[in-house]
């Protein structure tokens, strides 16, 4: 066969964790998590980045020592001078690969090997081929991509010898804005936010007026309330040609999450056992996988039922 079972990867922390907790999280991931690659860097808010920068080097070195490939992810929305400076300095890194999350990073990274992050709109073969020609080696697809399109993109990727990565766990990034909704909820604006997003390590829950949980606010980002869970779809994704499976970090035990996905990918546990173990985590929200099936994103379909 010669076919690899696939890699579990860890996406960048999307939330504003306490810097020391952030560092300790990565130290533990470095030492214990069965993941192949770890994405570091602030992708949501340039104001937050300064909080974590002092720990980047220690985290990256510890992860490398733990046998993990480190990739730095760039900011997803680039408007202000501070945003642009951060993208420029991240892209100037030569010690690590960089994952681009907006057009300004594409300008900086073209001509050398890089990754494409989920905030770049790669929906079709032609875009994939164009970016591969610019030096892109790995594509983490937008989370709203249905299985039919993932399958077609995998075929194109195989012919170009580039890899496809798909988020398989965690709240789904749904929208970006210039306005900070965390600051707005607290009656503030982005410039005077006082980092109120630090109160919500998994995002600030929004409920509809009749009380049903709906979305999660994370600064300028709006996310799903529910947690994407494609553990049941791993065999199908693998068969399509997806080779990298991204876990998006949350405050729950991510070592356990990684272990469950690794075991499921290696077929050491069944889908139903994997789902049951994930459901035992204290997430406080249901699972979803609707986008994959071309249904409303919040919905949940069990692979067996499909």
């Amino acid at each position, binding site marked *: 066969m010669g076919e690899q079972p696939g890699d579990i990867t860890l996406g960048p922390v999307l939330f504003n964790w306490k810097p020391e907790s952030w560092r300790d999280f990565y130290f533990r991931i470095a030492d214990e998590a069965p993941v192949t690659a770890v994405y570091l860097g602030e992708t949501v808010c340039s104001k937050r980045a300064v909080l974590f920068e002092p720990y980047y080097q220690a985290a990256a070195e510890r992860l490398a020592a733990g046998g993990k490939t480190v990739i730095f992810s760039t900011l997803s929305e680039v408007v202000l001078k501070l945003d642009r400076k951060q993208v420029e300095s991240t892209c100037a890194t030569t010690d690590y690969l960089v994952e681009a999350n907006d057009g*300004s990073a594409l*300008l900086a990274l073209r001509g050398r090997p890089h990754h494409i992050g989920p905030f770049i709109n790669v929906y079709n073969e032609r875009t994939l081929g164009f970016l591969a020609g610019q030096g892109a080696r790995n594509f983490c697809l937008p989370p709203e991509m249905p299985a039919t399109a993932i399958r077609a993109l995998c075929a194109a990727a195989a012919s170009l010898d580039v890899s496809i990565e798909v988020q398989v766990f965690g709240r789904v990034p749904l929208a970006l804005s*210039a306005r900070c909704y965390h600051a707005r909820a607290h009656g503030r*604006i982005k410039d005077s936010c006082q980092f109120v997003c630090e109160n919500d390590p998994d995002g600030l829950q929004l409920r509809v*007026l009749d009380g049903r949980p709906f979305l999660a606010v994370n600064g300028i980002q709006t996310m799903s309330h529910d947690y994407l869970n494609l553990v049941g779809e791993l065999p199908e994704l693998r068969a399509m040609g997806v080779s990298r499976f991204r876990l998006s970090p949350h405050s729950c035990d991510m070592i356990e999450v990684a272990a469950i996905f690794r075991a499921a990918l290696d077929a050491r546990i069944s889908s139903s056992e994997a789902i049951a173990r994930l459901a035992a985590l204290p997430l406080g929200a249901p699972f979803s996988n609707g986008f994959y099936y071309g249904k409303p994103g919040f919905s949940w379909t069990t692979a067996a039922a499909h």
Partner: protein
Amino acid sequence: MTEDRGYRRPELVCPAGTPAGLRTAVDAGADAVYCGLQNETNARNFPGLNFTPAELEQSIAYAHARQAKVLLAVNTFPPAGRFELWREAVDTAARLGVDAMIVGDMGVADYAARNHPQLRLHLSVQAGASSPEAIRFYCQEFGVKRVVLPRILTVPEIADIHSQIPCEIEAFIFGNIGMMAEGRCSLTNYVTGLSTNMDGVCSPAADVRYEEDAERNLTIKLGPFTIDRFACGESAGYPTICKGRYLCGVQPAGYYAFEEPVSLNLSALLPDLMRAGVTALKIEGRQRSRAYVRAVVSAFRRAVDAIMAGGDPGLAGLLALTEGHRETEGAFGGKTWR
């Protein structure tokens, strides 16, 4: 040209949802109209809107006979396996001789640039290019001649971008204001299963439900989610997720978590925008009525002409046309909006 004022005569770019709407906009003084084909290749893929290729051909003849340009929006993102529909749209645009095609997807732009090098490309707001570097990337790779800026920038930021890019700037001045960065919002798909990026729909009418209780209070739902509630007599705009009211732990009651139901109105900022380097002023609203288009286009035609003649734009009457009769300058007015 009036160089002494620091700006040149801007192009007034107006919405055309139908052939009749196109004629209305042209007759009301549009310098250019923008429109889409009757499918998911454009971001206003609404029932009853848009053009067949034959209608587009006739409409181009109508506009060109009156010195107006026609811009075709092919500005959604083709999902893998379905690129053919977008390829046909690009070929149609080139064959019929549109004055420019508005693109969002890199694959579509790449196809157009390689196969129809004579076809002028404008970068859609859907591409979300919000920095000089991102815009330069599209200019250099695909020969983009104009960028439609996201509605998230202040006037000084637009001026700053203008000095660092090799292409023209088009900016929205009036109409619906989306709160999320364009081309980067999956909220509609999350709730309805139809994608803004791939299907060209936002808050599709078929998924909107209005439920009235005994006191005639109105509950508005998109799919299974309540987006807002209005007391009897309160005015309700068209429901979108980003203009709904929600609950959260740090607010005492339902609040507009993203934005209130307001419309963008930059009429007071027109000279500032023109001085910042905006050379095309865009009016949103391909889904709006011909009466609306006639009123708004005529008003802005008079305003631009008045500004160029050194006079007052005189746009006070536009407030009556804004959504829920409430308006905002959005990000354009300054950083406190963020």
